[in-house]
């Protein structure tokens, strides 16, 4: 699940994370599909850390690999969430 990022090649210029794009009032995004809490909301109780690009990519890749391993070990079937917007909880009328 490491994708195309080359963990075995460290290029200094690539290690500074790109500028963030705002996703919602609370969330920003620096890498595709990698969401990050708005840094302005951090600091009161817990500070953000300095994190190079490779380390963010490492964590994300490790999470997918871990989920794959857990699914392989424990799941009879893995159901993926849809790519579209979350429809929210169904109403009682819809149940009827």
């Amino acid at each position, binding site marked *: 699940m490491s994708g195309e990022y080359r963990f*075995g090649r460290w290029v200094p210029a690539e290690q500074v994370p790109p500028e963030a794009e705002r996703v919602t009032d609370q969330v920003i995004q620096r890498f595709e599909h990698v969401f990050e809490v708005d840094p302005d909301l951090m600091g009161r109780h817990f500070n953000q850390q300095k994190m190079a690009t490779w380390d963010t990519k490492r964590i994300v890749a490790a999470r997918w690999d871990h989920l794959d391993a857990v699914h392989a070990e424990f799941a009879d079937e893995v159901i993926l969430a849809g790519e579209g917007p979350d429809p929210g909880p169904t109403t009682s009328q819809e149940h009827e």
Partner: protein
Amino acid sequence: MSNEHEHNESATAPTAATAATTVDLGTPQFLGEVEQAFVEKWHENATGCFSSGHKFCREVCPVTQVTRNENHTPTAFHANVIAMEKGHLTVEDVADDYVHCTQCGGCEVRCPNTLMVGDFYRARTETVKVVRAMRAMLVDKGLDREGWKVWNRLTNELKNEPVLGVEGDSPNAQAQVRDWAEGLDIPIGGDTIMFVDCEAAYYRTSVPRATAQILQAAGYEFGLMNEQWCCGGPAGEMGYVEQSMAFARHNVDDWRKSGVKRIIAIEPHDYVHFTEDYPAYFGEEFDFEVVQIIDLVAELIRDGRLKLTEPIDRVVTYHDPCRLNKRKGIHEAPREILRSIPGLTFKDVDRVTQWSYCSGGGGGLPIEKPEITAEISRRRLEKASELEVDTLVSACVWSERPLTAAGDEAGIEVKDIIELVAESAGIEIGGRTRA
């Protein structure tokens, strides 16, 4: 924090001698300046661990698996920071606990604070750094362990680690640092240099010889350093930060003098030091590209520049070196290489399962606690035995010494992945696999 200690100034601090045997939880103690700075720096990380308390780290920790001592768990390393902050522990109380770590990083990657939300909060568990900071404090306070003291004194004298033994006159100095390359006609300097770490340069010389000849066979140009010292990483891991920085300074200056732009790290520990410690030491001044050899060799094979033609009739499994897999996320390239070797039967164990595997060869553990290293390696070979293989393949020369010793007992040969590639490329490697 500071108010709390102002209140406690009148408390009588026990001496090191009394504190070493009894921890008095009822009498908070005043922290010295160094300890105060330490707990302030690591307060958030320790609190993140202590307040979560999931302890997923315990069973991936190779040392905890062996000692079953709660004081040796990654959780304890963080809890101690809280206890020191509250005045319930002194450095003396916990000094020996922090020796019990290979700095494999398994605890960090398995911690949900890293694995599930580390990228979201841009804050992850940094146990390895806590261990290193504690060890640095032990050095500052003269509480460093005797074995590490000798090892680093000799490293400072020799300019390379005393991997052939700390007693007697082992041929382990600068005069012999390039002996492994005899007859290979490798130039000095150039755009790209191959950094050969101490264990490879003096102990398992088959690894750098195989690496150099593979690169030559693929037509990949590289040179060696003018004057190669130890990378300084092990000194940093054991807490000798000034020595680590001095060695790093020397190596960077040597690269600069030769016009080097790219460093090939043939060993995973070096790759970690060059991509984490060196940038931390030198900031933007450190502008070299660093390439891990496994990534490079996989590319050379993929691009057809390196032909693997000789069948290797072995049944193998792969040991994910901690610093490649857990610390750096490098696990696909070695598997790609093994699958490209003709004749090889490869029985794989996934990288996540291997977060709890280790050789015990890192972080200075074999110097201070060789019996724990040996047991970690014995258990690793036991896992390999269950797969009915004849060979355990690693990609870390530091892991290969303890694994080989355990392999002798288990009847399984330990090979470096680059040695196998060279054999499959029809190269007569030379050198030796053990002293």
